[in-house]
Structures are given as C-alpha cells and as structure tokens.
C-alpha cells in the first residue's frame, strides 16, 4: 500500500504553511521528512492523519489507492495509518498498559504478526517495569516509548512518526533503529519526521526535505545525501 501526497497546500486560520508538497511512501519503504523547526513537517503529518487544524486547501492524499484527503482521523487510522504524535501525547490518566490496550486493533492486512502488549514490552522492557503506572508520571523517554508502542498496537501498514527520537537516550535509538529495520522487512512502511539527521539517514532510504518555501524542495535517497551533504547544508544548516 502506497502513500501518495501530491501538490499539497495546507494552512492554518492565521497563515498558509505548505505550498505544494509531493511525497511518496511505497510499500515497505521508509521515508524521512527533514526540515528545520517550523517548516511544516508536523503540519504535513497532521494533514495526512486527517487532524484539524490545519486545513487542506489543495492537493490530494491517497493511501493504497483510496483518497483519504478529507477523511476523519479515525477513518484514516482504520485504513492502516498509525501516528506517533509529536510531543508524545500519551493518555496521562491511563496506565501504561491501558494506553496500549485502549486503541482499537486492526486485524486485516496488518504487516507481520499482530502486536500485543507483551510484544511491546519486549520491544521496550523499560515499559514492562512501569506497566501499572499512570502515563502522566512516566519519564519523558518512557512516554516516548509508550507513544511508539501505542501506535504499533493498531497493527498499522504505515507508521508515521513525528520526531520519535526526542527525549530518548542514545542507546534506545539504536534499538529502535534495529527493530524498525526488522518491521520493514515484514512489510511495514514508515514515514519519519526527524531532527536527528544521523538517525533519519540510518533508518530511511528515501529523504524529503521541506524548506521555508513550504515545498518539498529536495527528494532523493539517503545514500545520495551521504555521498553529497550539500543539500543538508543548504536546507538544514548542518
């Protein structure tokens, strides 16, 4: 199932943000979305997931041949798109386990074997120790792990992660990188908005950069970027 975003124009009541973004995430592919703070990564991610605001002014978002541009968030989730939102947004008054069980689980057309609480705990052993704790009192990194686990619990086809590395200790990032690689081999597609360019290039094979014009200015592969870092310098100031 392929995600195709074409010529997307998106804005808020106060300002237009994206002025023509094109992006494709093929089946089992992993795409990194790069851009400086405030360039519109989250805006794009939210548009894909159907969250309002912002509003889509023009363009289309198609997933697996189905136009999801103006669908409601829960409908989009049901076609197999899961979100790790920026800033974690775990359900604070639910326990760790409840956070995982509260989401509806898709059975159909899932990538690989279905997710269970146990499997998430295997993924992040730290969470197992905190299973009965209110999510609000988890540490920042623990919440981030929980947010990732929660998204996986929906058994998605496409996993969208908005800055999953934020607040995670370096060693955890390695684990995540390895596990995501495994998951991709079982058919999961990944769209990753990231500030940590090293991590992004390690995880993703394709890269899209959004710049201050609100367009997908640069599209290519991670290998290309490793070979020639000038786009990174130009658009991300590295």
């Amino acid at each position: 199932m392929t995600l195709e975003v074409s010529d997307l124009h998106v804005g808020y009541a106060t300002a237009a943000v994206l002025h023509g973004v094109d992006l494709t995430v093929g089946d089992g592919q992993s795409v990194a979305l790069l851009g400086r703070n405030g360039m519109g990564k989250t805006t794009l991610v939210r548009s894909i997931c159907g969250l309002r605001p912002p509003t889509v002014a023009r363009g289309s978002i198609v997933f697996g041949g189905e136009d999801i541009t103006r669908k409601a968030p829960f409908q989009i989730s049901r076609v197999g798109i899961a979100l790790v939102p920026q800033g974690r947004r775990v359900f604070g008054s639910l326990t760790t386990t409840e956070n995982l069980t509260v989401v509806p689980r898709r059975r159909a057309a899932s990538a690989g074997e279905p997710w269970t609480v146990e499997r998430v705990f295997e993924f992040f052993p730290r969470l197992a120790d905190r299973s009965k704790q209110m999510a609000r009192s988890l540490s920042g990194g623990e919440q981030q792990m929980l947010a990732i686990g929660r998204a996986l619990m929906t058994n998605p086809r496409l996993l969208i992660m908005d800055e999953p590395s934020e607040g995670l200790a370096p060693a955890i990032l390695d684990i995540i990188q390895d596990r995501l690689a495994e998951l991709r081999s079982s058919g999961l597609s990944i769209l990753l908005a990231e500030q940590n360019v090293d991590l992004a290039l390690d995880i993703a094979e394709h890269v899209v950069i959004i710049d201050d014009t609100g367009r997908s200015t640069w599209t290519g592969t991670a290998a290309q970027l490793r070979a020639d870092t000038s786009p990174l310098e130009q658009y991300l100031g590295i």
Partner: protein
Amino acid sequence: MFEPVFLAQQALNGLSFGALLFLLASGLTLVFGLQRIVNLAHGAFYMLGGYIGLVIATLTGNLLLAVVVAMIAVGVTAFVVEVGLLRFVRGQEMPEVLLTIGVMFVVADLCLAIFGGDPKTLPAAASIQGAMSIGGLIYPWYRIFVIGVAVVIGIALALVQTKTRVGAIVRAGVDDRETISAMGVNIGWVFTGMFVVGGALAALSGTIGSGVISVRPGIQNEVLMYALVVIILGGLGSIKGAAVGAVLIGLIDAFAKAWIPELAYFTIFAPMALVLVFRPSGLFGRAT
C-alpha cells in the same frame, strides 16, 4: 434526640437522602466528571425525566415501565442536544456552559408549559408501599429501595469505568481527544453515547426520586446544585468520590438538622466549602 430508634431512623434518613443525591448526581458524574462536559442541563433532564416517568406511572401504575420510558425519552432528547448543538462546541468549556444553560431554560420552561406547575409525586399505585419494621424502628420500603438502586447504579458505573475499555476510551478521550481519534476511535460517537447515558440516568433518578421529593418548577436548579456539590466534594470523575460525598452530605444533613438546626441551611454547602479549602481537588480528586 439520642434514643437508639431515633438515631437509627436519622441514619437511614441520611443514607437514603445520600443515595438519592448519588442517584441524581450519577448522570452528571459521567458527563461532567469523566467527559468534562459542563452539562448544566442535567437538572432539566432530571426534571423532564421525572415528569415523563410520572405521567407513565400514573397511567399504568408500573414503576419499571415509567423508568424505562423516561430513560428512552430523555435519552433521545440528550441525543438531539448532543448531536444538534453540543457537538459544535466540543471541548470549549464556556460555550458549553452557555449552550447547556440555554437548553436548561428551554426545557424547564417547556416542562412548565406542558406539565403545569403543580408539584407532582409518584402515585401510590406505582410506588413501593409499606414500611419495614424492626423492633421500634419503622422505615418506609421505598426509601430502602432508593438506597438499593443507588448501590446498583454505583457498582455498575464503577465497573464500566474501571473494567471496560469504554471507560478507558472515555478517559483517553478526555486526556487527548485528537490523539485517540487518530488511533482509530470515533470518539465523537463515544462521547455522544456517554451523554445519552448521562441523560438517561438523569431520567432514571428523576422518576425514582419523585417518590421522595416532588418534581416541580425549580427542581432543575436544585438537582443541578446538589449534583454539582456531590461530585465536586468527591472529586471530579471519581465514582467512589461521588458515592462517599453523597453519603457524607446525606448523613451530615440528617444529623445536623436534628442537633444543630440553626445551621440546617448550610449543611449542604459548608462541608463542600470546607473540603475544597483544605483539599482543593475534592476528597478523591487528583490534583491537576
């Protein structure tokens, strides 16, 4: 004033009034406590439910039927209010307040127009007659029945809240409505459902409550106030808190009226004010 029979009777008075308080707060506990919708129309739903229940009870003499019809009728009303009005201002506290006050005005005024302003109480035929008698203690069965209903409703609510996924979904929806919908839950309809259940509970308590306190113009405000006091005293969203709060107020009220009658007027509000001064989030409320 201290004879055992008198004490026992007052304790039962307090308990049954507390049970009534819990019942009339139960719908609001769901809607306001869990869902954080400031439903000021709760009292009006109680009133409407009470009137409808009474009409059916008078016609058929069947309390159960009266309760069911009232719950359905008010449930439908609540559905219309939620889908037709509240949905447009979801999550915005102040507009919700104004909207539900508007609904309260309209419903209460229409009740006056339709049902007249006479106080109405449950007809004897539909009520549970007679009194329990143990030794010197005589106590009406109906009020014991009210205690029983409150206990059942309380347990049911607590189970729904803790043991089912619906409870967790609602709490998640309150924490972060947007994220739970991005996880695939149609939270809008879940909330609508809760609102309807809240309305139906108001109707249930309105019908059953009419056997203890009459339904009449103005009852909407009284019920709303009692219900607010109970759930605030107990702590928002805590079923246990609402239950403890209700029983506490009931007992304090009963004994204070006997022993310190000068303060009778303040017995409902003073405990709440005191508790809030020392525990700003209520007895069982979590500090925010």
